[in-house]
């Protein structure tokens, strides 16, 4: 189990796999990912696994400012 934007979900094999499962594509422009509070560089998404209980934040640009 992992927590994606606060929601409990099944784990995924990698960050890239998680993004694909969310329907965002493998490396969507305008998206960033933090794992347990630390920003994950885009280049690491393919290899980055997620431990049980991982807190994953998936963010993007919205209208504002």
């Amino acid at each position, binding site marked *: 189990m992992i927590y994606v*934007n*606060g929601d409990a979900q099944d784990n995924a094999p990698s960050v890239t796999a998680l993004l694909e499962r969310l329907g*965002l594509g493998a490396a969507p*422009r305008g998206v*960033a990912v933090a794992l347990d509070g630390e920003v994950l560089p885009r280049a690491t998404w393919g290899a980055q696994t997620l431990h049980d209980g991982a807190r994953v934040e998936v*963010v993007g*640009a*919205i*209208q504002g*400012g």
Partner: protein
Amino acid sequence: MQSRAAEKTGTTAFVLAGRELPSRLILGSGGFTSLELLAQAVEASGSGLVTVAIRRIDPAARGSLVDLLDSLGVAILPNTAGCYTARDAIATARLAREALQTDLIKLEVIGDERTLLPDAPELLAAAEQLIADGFEVLPYTTDDPILARRLEDAGCAAVMPLGSPIGSGMGIANPYNIALICEQASVPVVLDAGVGTASDAALAMELGCSAVLSASAISRAEDPVAMAAAIAGAVAAGFAARGAGRIPRRLYASASSPLAGMPDLG
């Protein structure tokens, strides 16, 4: 003949953090009721730089803002809106950089919900850290000339004082402070927040600002596209007037018609 404003900046082009922009109006994307309306306002504004906020993705709600802004050919300026501490603002800026592949960040560190005024110590601390991390920091700040100087000394690429609180439409509450900030700054001064209508934007430029950032005044106007064009015109007019050099204010009248040669009609 070069205008005074051109002499001061060396050129009439607007360069912000090393990027030459086509307009001195920066458009905030918040508050538009649809992406279509935002697109029309971007075009009417002539702006080359548009702000966005960073939030959790809602996979259900796409119709991508980033794709839209890319297709319009404008640069994206992410902000740290909603952050109350330097720590949160720094984390948000790092997410924005990773998401949008830009070093530009509009740094907002807010002190309270009611006024949305900047928290000066947190703002300065966040600016220092982000500059050390290689960001081009554009801080939303109060109209305090000393804080503006401290932010510039820290290495900010611009200073962005408020005219009045975010979304208030109250215009420029302290034009004397804005003028002082402009007089002392060697980085661009961008009036951020408070613009309610075109005249506020013109005044900002007449006071010596290099640019104006406007969001609510445009997006929440009855006709946002018409207001985008109006504020763009005001920014251009205010910049031109600043360069042209206004007459001094005086208490009494000063006749513009000569007194000599009056006929004797006694």
